[in-house]
């Protein structure tokens, strides 16, 4: 490490490792925070899967982890169940796959791949990370309060999320959730503006927009989506805070609680849904595009071929980015919206399938007649493309407003978005970590462990989410604390056990990754100059991207 740093000014421990303005250090900080949050997020899912798989059994482990309020005698409380579901969703969507994925790889790769010394504003970059850190702390802290974390689902629809009378998590837990998200949005905006400015202005000589690596295009479009849509979520969150604290009624009307009719009148919860999903849908692509961008690069490098249809890839990303802004209504087909509007959103939503199909076929053609090096990163990329296809096709069903009448909010939806958004993005993120680890830490991760990690992860991922489609076809609604109240769902008991077993194994398998990751940082073998024999701009600089 010493020879990397000796040729530039001396930095103190604090400026180098904590309040660093160096994009590579910030990338590492983002990654570590995201891994920490990811560990919490997936652990929560394993905990509530215990309840779903074995609804009658007592798990003392739940009581020892969550405390006796949340799981008295090892039986998960129904409010806390919703709390775990909510935080699992929030953490995975925002903290791991938005903050973690974009934050890490945009920061690491944008300057390296466009040939810039650093991001346009190191200071903004630093503030962006520390706001992300603060919001992570706030969100994680909400798990430790007596009344529990936010419990209204990751979408926190009002009025459920407004009054603590409706559920305990809508008290302090929801306040923390909203504060955390507000800080998170500020972080995301600072980061996003920085990425856009850097890509537009700091490209090296000859690096025209049509020569940019697809990773950079993906980060660029992602940043634009974020900058345009996150402010809308911010307004939704602020209005919600006001409804909760200052007696306004943006989202409330005609509500009766146990103490009688509320004064609130004239608002509508549907307004919140519109504001939320105006971010919520582009958010899907904020998560997906960076993963697909890195997948493009890694597949091309490891197949020893240029990516097939470079311009078509850019075009399809632009199309996806644009369309993602006019499809949010497909989350709300059943809110009582005008059927004509439902038809419009069906049409725009199904259009997204076209650029998505182009991307999938281009990935496959890149592998065709290639010379595929099966590095762990490449394995994860193949997995990501497979998940993108498998989850994408069921999206066609959910996009159809008529079919949504019988699929909406069932486990079919859970299966669909976990495969297309969760699995694709997380597999893409793992691919990025394995592939760019030499640039992050100057070391190489253990390959055989990476391979084992991949196979267990993809088997368990599909093992968990494929059966969920069938639960949904059987009409099982999501976010049910127990499915045993309805005898008609009893024939799914064994399928739920199967899902829970896959989930537990899948979660435990991530220990392989955590171990490999931290072991390799400290004791992994040193990486060579260009470990994966890449021949585009990112890998030519000496390993462990040095400071300028």
């Amino acid at each position, binding site marked *: 490490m010493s020879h990397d740093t000796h040729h530039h000014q001396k930095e103190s421990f604090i400026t180098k490792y904590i309040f660093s303005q160096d994009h590579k250090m910030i990338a590492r900080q983002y990654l570590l925070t995201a891994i920490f949050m990811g560990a919490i997020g997936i652990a929560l899912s394993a905990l509530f899967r215990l309840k779903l798989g074995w609804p009658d059994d007592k798990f003392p482990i739940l009581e020892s982890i969550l405390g006796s309020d949340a799981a008295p005698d090892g039986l998960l409380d129904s409010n806390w169940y919703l709390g775990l579901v909510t935080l699992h969703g929030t953490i995975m969507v925002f903290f791991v796959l938005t903050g973690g994925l974009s934050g890490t790889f945009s920061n690491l790769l944008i300057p390296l791949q466009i040939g810039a010394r650093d991001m346009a504003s190191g200071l903004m970059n630093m503030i962006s990370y520390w706001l992300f850190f603060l919001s992570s702390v706030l969100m994680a802290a909400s798990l430790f309060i007596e009344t529990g974390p936010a419990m209204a689902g990751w979408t926190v629809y009002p009025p459920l999320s407004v009054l603590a009378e409706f559920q305990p998590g809508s008290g302090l837990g929801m306040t923390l959730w909203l504060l955390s998200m507000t800080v998170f949005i500020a972080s995301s905006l600072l980061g996003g503006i920085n990425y856009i400015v850097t890509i537009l202005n700091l490209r090296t000589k000859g690096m025209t927009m049509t020569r940019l690596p697809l990773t950079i295009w993906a980060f660029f479009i992602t940043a634009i989506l974020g900058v345009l849509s996150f402010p809308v979520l911010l307004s939704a969150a602020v209005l919600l805070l006001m409804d909760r604290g200052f007696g306004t009624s943006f989202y409330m009307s005609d509500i009766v609680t146990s103490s009688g009719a509320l004064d609130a009148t004239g608002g*509508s919860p549907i307004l919140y849904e519109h504001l939320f999903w105006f971010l919520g849908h582009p958010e899907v692509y904020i998560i997906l595009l960076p993963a697909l961008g890195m997948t493009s690069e890694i597949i091309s490098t490891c197949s020893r071929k240029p990516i*097939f249809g470079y311009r078509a890839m850019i075009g399809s990303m632009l199309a996806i980015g644009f369309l993602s802004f006019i499809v949010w209504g497909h989350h709300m087909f059943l*809110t009582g919206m005008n059927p004509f509007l439902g038809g419009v959103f069906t049409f725009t939503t199904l259009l997204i399938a076209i650029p998505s199909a182009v991307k999938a076929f281009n990935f496959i053609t890149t592998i065709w007649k290639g010379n595929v090096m099966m590095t762990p990163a490449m394995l994860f990329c193949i997995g990501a493309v497979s998940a993108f296809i498998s989850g994408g096709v069921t999206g066609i069903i959910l996009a159809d407003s008529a079919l949504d009448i019988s699929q909406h909010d069932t486990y079919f939806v859970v299966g669909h978005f976990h495969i297309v958004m969760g699995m694709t993005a997380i597999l893409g993120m793992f691919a990025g970590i394995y592939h760019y680890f030499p640039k992050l830490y100057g070391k190489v991760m253990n*390959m055989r462990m990476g391979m084992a990690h991949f196979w267990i992860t993809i088997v368990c991922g599909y093992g968990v989410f494929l059966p969920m489609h069938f639960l949904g076809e059987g009409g099982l609604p999501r976010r049910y604390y127990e499915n045993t109240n309805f*005898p008609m769902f009893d024939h799914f008991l064994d*399928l739920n056990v199967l899902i829970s077993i896959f989930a537990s194994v899948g979660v435990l398998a991530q220990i392989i990754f955590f171990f490999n990751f931290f072991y390799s940082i400290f*004791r992994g073998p040193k*990486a060579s100059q260009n470990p994966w024999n890449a021949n585009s701009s990112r890998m030519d600089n000496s390993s462990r991207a040095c400071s300028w």
Partner: protein
Amino acid sequence: MEIKFIIIITVALFFIALVQLMKIYDLAAKVRGEKSQEKVSRSENMLMANLMLVFMAAFFGFIIWLIAKYGSNSGLYQAASAHGKDIDELLMINWYIILPVFFITNSLLFGFSWKYYYREERKALYYPHNNKLEAVWTIVPAIALAFIVIYGLMTWNKIMYNQEKGEIVEVYAYQFGWIVRYSGIDNTLGKADYKMVSSTNPLGVITQKTIKETYIEIDQRVNDIDSILSSNINVEGKYLIPEAKLFKLREEYDKLKRRKYRIEASIDRKVNNLSVYESSNDDIIVQEIHLVKDQPYTFKFRSKDVIHCPWFPHFRAQINAVPGMETSFALTPTITTKEMRANPDVQKHWENINVIHNERKRRIGEEEERVLFDYVLMCNKICGAGHSNMQLKVIVETQNEFNQWIENNGDNKRLTFSGQEVNWSKTKAQASL
């Protein structure tokens, strides 16, 4: 405590052992002269490539097993409503388009990964783009999607626009249950307002009687609070009640006053024509939904507190119930509960469910029971702790059975708001003659 300590120690030792093992592994690799971790060896490449095929086979096998076991036997059977058949048909057509795409693209992906794994002597084909090929896989999906969009929208429009006005039934959602109100002979629901909701008037129906009752209820509570306040005051004019409680009482006092004022201003004084109240005279409130086969219904949904989503899985019908607005969904049940129970597929399935159900009952030490198929209404939008148990039985039957139910159900007399005893089924029968 000791056990936890031992567990922590064990886990820590396990990781230390793992680190040591890794060190040995790294050293051994160095001794063998492997340039480990960067270059995938030929045998590993081949192994991974073969695993791709194995995985693909397992993956497809798993899906086919799931389809065989649950695909045609999802537990919802054929749609039991007129529009539900259209939805099922559309879904089937979508599956016929989607599944081949899914199998073909996934097999191409895994197949190519297997076939073209890295061998030093091979050279990858330089193939950066092919406009014709790209045009093909832009246009072909576009055509398929055009078909899906058109067919889908036709179905959607058919369901949502052809909502002929059937018999109106209101479903009122609250944490955590449902209240059902039939609109009676005039097929018009009596007006309701959330400000009128009380323990005796759960739906907030507006009649002169309920308005009076609400005033009395509010005045009583106001007097109660007054008397609490005046009896807990000492000579110096200070209250003896704790500050927080005092605050709460005053808040409630103000709220009640406001509520009364709002009822007076927005409900009571607005109504000049008393006939407005009459439509509620024949409404009845029940705890079960009974529907007549082949009779079109228009369900109206309101919510008391948070967003709920009434979901009739067997009728393929759902729409949100949102506080502050009324939503509606029309459906025509086409199969009676009895007919459904007599269906051999359903019978076989419920035999199986009974076995599983009672196996569980035995395991948890509850009494065994025989469960039968029933249509249900459940909640499909997260609404709090009791979300997973908002169930209401729905019974589809013939007109005669329905009339019998109405007549035998004393509730209809007790719960009409008119105060008169209207025998609903008789008047209805007369009306239809």
